[in-house]
């Protein structure tokens, strides 16, 4: 795999068609993993795959079964349907399986496929959440931190413990928003480690100016349908954005409570101060890291 292009899984039961498609994608520089079925696709998937190109009909299912599998395992991975069937004739999956489609019947179909795959795999183009405008810079800034090391720090554990008692809430956490998931580097009151970005409230917090309060998650159309947020101890949210010195949003310091809850301006200011503390700790870790190099 090149440094810039992600791997592509090419799914088609017809060996001749699949081989031609694989060759076209390989000629464009992609590492391509051929697959002849839904089951084989499950084996071929991993986090280095940026796009799945699938036929509409497969021996053990259909293209939308592949899409369902991909969305379940790697929800941000782009999916492209490449078939000679016309849109109206396609067996439909659910009503919410948004994908790209390239008909094999158009002239220069492989060229068009390469164009669409190249574009679709160029970032989180099929993400089910809003993506920051400076996402590449933001992720580069986050990559400078050792998340495993941060997760082991007692400092953040002490801070989240202090936050739960200060606000009299059920859960407090420090979350860093990575490319596909949010990682909880410290969490008091629950045993959460990661959540996918499309399910994460902090995905939205990093887009806000500073502190975001959701008084009742079940009444907010952005989050009311998220199953992961329907746990009994998750009903209200307040999150203060964490940024680095360049202004890149790395994550958030957050309060979760099992009842709907509002926050006074004084409480919002306090949460901001807790987030300032996390930002200072992160900056300190970076200075120590740079000093040791």
């Amino acid at each position: 795999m090149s440094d810039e292009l992600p791997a592509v899984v090419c799914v088609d039961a017809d060996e001749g068609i699949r081989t031609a498609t694989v060759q076209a994608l390989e000629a464009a520089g992609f590492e391509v993993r051929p697959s002849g079925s839904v089951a084989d696709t499950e084996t071929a998937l991993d986090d280095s795959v940026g796009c799945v190109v699938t036929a509409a009909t497969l021996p053990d299912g259909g293209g939308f079964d592949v899409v369902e599998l991909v969305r379940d395992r790697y929800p941000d991975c782009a999916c492209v349907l490449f078939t000679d069937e016309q849109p109206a004739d396609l067996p439909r999956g659910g009503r919410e399986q948004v994908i790209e489609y390239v008909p094999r019947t158009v002239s220069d179909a492989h060229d068009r496929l390469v164009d669409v795959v190249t574009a679709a795999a160029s970032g989180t183009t099929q993400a089910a959440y809003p993506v920051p405008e400076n996402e590449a810079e933001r992720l580069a800034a986050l990559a400078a931190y050792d998340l495993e090391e941060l997760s082991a720090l007692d400092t953040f554990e002490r801070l989240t413990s202090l936050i739960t008692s200060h606000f009299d809430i059920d859960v407090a956490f420090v979350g860093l928003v990575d490319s596909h998931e949010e990682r909880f580097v410290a969490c008091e009151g629950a045993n959460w480690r990661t959540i996918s970005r499309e399910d994460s409230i902090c995905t939205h917090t990093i887009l806000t100016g500073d502190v975001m309060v959701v008084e009742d998650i079940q009444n907010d159309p952005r989050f009311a349908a998220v199953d992961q947020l329907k746990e009994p101890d998750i009903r209200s949210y307040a999150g203060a954005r964490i940024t680095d010195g360049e202004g890149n949003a790395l994550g958030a310091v957050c309060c979760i409570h099992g009842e709907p809850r509002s926050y006074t301006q004084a409480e919002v200011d306090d949460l901001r101060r807790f987030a300032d503390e996390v930002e200072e700790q992160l900056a300190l870790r970076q200075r120590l890291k740079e000093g040791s190099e």
Partner: protein
Amino acid sequence: MATRHGAGYEFPGLPLKRVDAGTNLLLTGPALEGARELLLGLLLGEDGVLIITADTSARKILSAFEGVGGRIDRDRVRVVSCTQERDDELGDFVASVGSPGDLTGIGIEYSGQYEQVYARGYDTVRTGIYTLTPLLVYSEDVRPVFRFVNTVTSRIRTADGLGICAINPSAHDEQVINSIAQPFDARIDVREVKGTVELRVTGLPGQPTEWTAVPALS
């Protein structure tokens, strides 16, 4: 008529300067206060045109397109209709999905029509979505709508197209509007005051930031 010059799209007759190829614009305003006509006016030109219509039938949207000076050339102009009204008899330049909640179908039909226009030699395409509001209303979960908007705006951006997507701001929470607005390069607000349609632009340098009359639509 609007024309495309070099690496951008122009809008003669409208108080907007040229925008770069690959630009996506979010158009916010009530339906009866010029939003539909402004969106259709932004699609005028000799480029390929794709219209996704979600709360106006294909027949009405095409009539309105002609009303603002558009020419319906079936090789160049294509429609994806996701209203409840039957538009099948109009021909294959109109694809019917049947429900604004069928995001799978809308996405596939849009891609299919895009490829049909591209195959006919139109490698610059103006896409208009009128409007996102029914898609949001019909979807119980907002996340697939985010995926739809990200997918369409990404295709427009990477294909050097132009995207204009309308939404009725009074129908949604402000937070939803702000999140939906994320993949767009700029926002055009439109309103009607005493019979005069006005617009203002946020997010693009050199465009009118104060309310500015649109004489062509008044």
